């Protein structure tokens, strides 16, 4: 059932191009702003990681705010609630959609980050960074879906999303930024062995942060599954 909702969401997004292009343009614009704001041609280590993390988080908030727009404006909630379907199908579909939006965004954002921030060692650390990106995307998607479901039925929905969402995303932001920072700073010239090194976390200085992110994902997945039904009810 989640597949039916996801397929519908992806079809609508492909036809309207309302969410992912906006997120991508916003992220690239943020990199440009940081580039000129910090007045540096090259960002290193923790600073580079922070810029990437904050830009992606803000883009995720943008996606979060649009996640249930069609459901609210075109009666999709009512149509879904009238069907004899497990409510968690909507959670799974929306979280997967936001996760996919983030992945597509990063296909644009990471090369743009390389251009505007030019952090040394980005190529070598890419394997580890991809793992961090996937895990932080999952956190953004799960928390974003929950927050969006809370915000969608309120009058100040555009404000509620960031106000609730940003603090809840802080643990993921910290783990992601520190982990990526270590990847960039400690092994600035290493080869493409980042994936394996990141998996064997006790041998990698960023591995423990990968574990923190994974645990935060598990926690949010369980929390979302437990409360999502109640959020959709009146």
């Amino acid at each position, binding site marked *: *059932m989640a597949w*039916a909702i996801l397929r*519908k969401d992806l*079809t*609508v997004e492909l*036809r*309207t191009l309302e969410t992912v292009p906006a997120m991508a343009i916003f992220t690239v614009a943020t990199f440009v702003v940081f580039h000129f704001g910090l007045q540096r041609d090259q960002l290193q280590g923790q600073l580079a990681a922070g810029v990437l993390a904050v830009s992606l988080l803000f883009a995720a908030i943008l996606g979060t705010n649009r996640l249930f727009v*069609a459901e609210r404006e*075109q*009666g*999709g909630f*009512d*149509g*879904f*609630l*009238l*069907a*004899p*379907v497990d409510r968690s199908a909507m959670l799974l579909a929306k979280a997967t959609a936001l996760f996919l939006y983030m992945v597509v965004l990063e296909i644009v954002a990471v090369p743009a980050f390389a251009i505007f921030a030019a952090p040394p060692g980005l190529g070598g650390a890419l394997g580890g960074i991809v793992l961090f990106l996937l895990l932080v995307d999952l956190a953004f998607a799960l928390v974003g879906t929950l927050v969006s479901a809370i915000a969608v039925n309120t009058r100040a929905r555009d404000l509620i999303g960031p106000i609730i969402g940003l603090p809840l995303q802080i643990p993921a932001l910290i783990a992601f930024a520190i982990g990526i920072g270590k990847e960039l700073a400690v092994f600035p010239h290493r080869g493409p062995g980042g994936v394996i090194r990141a998996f064997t976390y006790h041998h990698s200085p960023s591995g423990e942060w990968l574990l923190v992110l994974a645990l935060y994902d598990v926690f949010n997945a369980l929390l979302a599954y437990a409360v999502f039904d109640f959020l959709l*009810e*009146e």
Partner: protein
Amino acid sequence: MDDVISIRELVRNFGERAVLRGVSVSVPAGASLAVLGRNGAGKSTLLRILATLLRPHGGEVRLFDRTLPRDSWAVRGQIGLLSHEPLLYRELSGRENLIYHARLHGIDRARVEEVLAAVGMARRGDDPVRACSRGMVQRLAVARAVLHRPRLLLLDEPRSNLDPAAADLIEPLIGRGAGITRVLTSHDPEAALAEADLVLALQGGRAAYLGPPEGIDSATIRELYR
């Protein structure tokens, strides 16, 4: 005959405002209940409570011998709702919308083509909903409402935006002859009375009249809409 709907002393508020205050009504299987009343009388609220989309704040609501909202999950697939909103995604075609709803209800694709043909939208089924006229959207909304062969139809102004030919077209699907238990609202009391077995007139959130259509006179109707 068993009652499909049984409502006792139903109360529903929106903030401080009481929209329904102690409404009671029972509807037997196969019967049609017309709900009359001016704008804001609580007609749509009553329909949304029966559709399990709103919770009652007081009293008891039973559908198919199940109590709402506790057993909402058990009755959802048996309700067809035609509301003011068509519940269709504008960027999808009519056919895509119906296929989506068919998937949610676990219905095969053949039924989608069947209802599209029944509402006269088979040839225009691939047009995006945003490109359809209001009348065509209403026909698609009817197709969506009856797609899963509901046992209870909740019809809020079902013939709005339809020309006489289109209204005739959907008659076998949602009309009295369909043999489905129906609750319908209308701003055209004469038309609603003509197809009702039972009338509930709402005024100020209370039942001003409950009984057969023959029992309500034109003076009472005029008073209702004053």
